């Protein structure tokens, strides 16, 4: 069981982590990065699976099923789109690039 304060600590540290990672990103990566973080919150799929896995009534199952469907779409779609964008960065000359400042 994660109690309130432990959760607060996790929130705080994770928030700093996210903030720091983005802080020094070159503009050219903003779109892929937005897409990449969009993929990462696809972890919601796990939660939706748990919700459906605990559903008892047909009504709850329906909600859970929709949740899993949407979560799976978030994860898979986010991955494909991000990967396709980043693929193109790999294709262009890496040496000519301006790295992160």
């Amino acid at each position, binding site marked *: 069981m994660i109690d309130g304060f432990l959760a607060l600590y996790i929130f705080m540290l994770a928030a700093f982590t996210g903030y720091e990672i983005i802080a020094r990103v070159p503009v050219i990566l903003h779109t892929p990065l937005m897409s990449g*973080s969009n993929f990462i919150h696809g972890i919601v799929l796990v939660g939706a699976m748990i919700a459906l896995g605990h559903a008892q009534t047909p009504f709850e199952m329906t909600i859970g099923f929709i949740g899993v469907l949407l979560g799976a779409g978030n994860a898979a779609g986010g991955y494909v789109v991000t990967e396709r964008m980043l693929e193109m960065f790999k294709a262009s000359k890496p040496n000519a690039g301006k790295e992160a400042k």
Partner: protein
Amino acid sequence: MAWLPVVIKACYFLAALLFILGLKRMSSPRSARGGIVWAGVGMLVAVLATFALPDMQNRGLILAAVLIGVSAAWWSGRRVVMTAMPQMVALYNGMGGGAAAAIGAAELFSYAGKSVTLLDGGQFTANGVDTPSAAQLVLAVLGALIGSVSFSGSLIAFAKLQGWLDRRFVFPGQRVVNLLVLAAAVVLGGMIASGQLTMPLIVAFFVLALLFGLMMTLPIGGADMPVVISLYNAFTGLAVAFEGFVLQNEAMIIAGTVVGAAGTLLTQLMAKAMNRSIGNVLFGSFGAAGGAAQAIAGAQKPIEASDAAVMMAYAERVVIVPGYGMAVAQAQHKVWEFAKLLIERGVKVKFAIHPVAGRMPGHMNVLLAEAGVPYDLIADMDDINPEFPQTDVALVIGANDVVNPLAKTDPASPIYGMPILDVSAARQVIVVKRGKGTGFAGIENALFYADNARMLYGDGQAAASELVAALKTLDG
């Protein structure tokens, strides 16, 4: 099976670690490609571990939903053209928000029917719903609210970018109505969180939350969509983190919070690039400022592609300013071909990119990268603006609002104060544009009427092809 819960916990830990490392790698061009793969592995590990949770039922249903969702999204994500990426991100993001809302709904409804919450008390109940703590209840409601707003809001953003909804819906007193809807949703949420877990209350709460997402997004103009999508991305992250706490799932809490924070910062960076605050984007009167849309004196002066090509062929410095029009016309390859021909002739060519050109920040960079334009020919706004006075020809392809001088001169203009690319400082400006209409923000552009501006009417792809052909005949 005492080891199984530990293994599953370890898998979630591994997933969270891989997400953070992956995101870190994605923030540098060289390692970016690997970053998404790392994060992908993390996701796979987390999903497989969840299947193995001991007290899961409905495994068949879960598998079916995962397979359908994954294959549909995979198929659409593979098929979509690069130019449509922004709305796809909006769509997938909306799905994530919807999923978070669905988790909240499932939890709240299961609390509502008290009789069904008794679980066999294994020490590892990932879904400890038997007695929801006050904090869990509050966060379930908050996550559901934010997730619902992100869901319906993202869908509207998707529809707008897709061109299904091409106008803003504005009416007097809209802001007040929106605030009332939000206030009502919050009040209902508060009642639910304080223990009034009745069916009608929960349903009404979700209806209002979804409605608020719709109404909040409808009045926002297309030019602001990048900021909005980024904001909803952060929203979804936050909703996922909250629902993660409700389900006592560490991977969700960490991944969601990281995205929430990263997305918030990204949103700020974007809004800053437009010289606006996030609040101004959401509740401001962009484009709705009704009044004095200044009439612009003068006429647009057309130019033929062959003349334009000659002008640039004998120029010393040419700066190409791409915008959404280039993306729509899929003209990036032709434009790069044209630029290469110019470079062969000894012309110094650069690409100037406004931070919010296109529909997402970095949208143009992605397209130019796709066409094979090297990074070092691409300049940011701050670097290129001092160079325009020494530039012979600025070639504007499908960009409009980001080069509109009214942003600097006309306080009545809705985009007043937004930093722009100073193309009008160049000796000659050639604007490739489909017609005489206004841009996505629906604002007249004084640049098109400037003395040194010539209009090359036509679709970006066709115009670029004509330019290439004209340049080739020039060389004989």
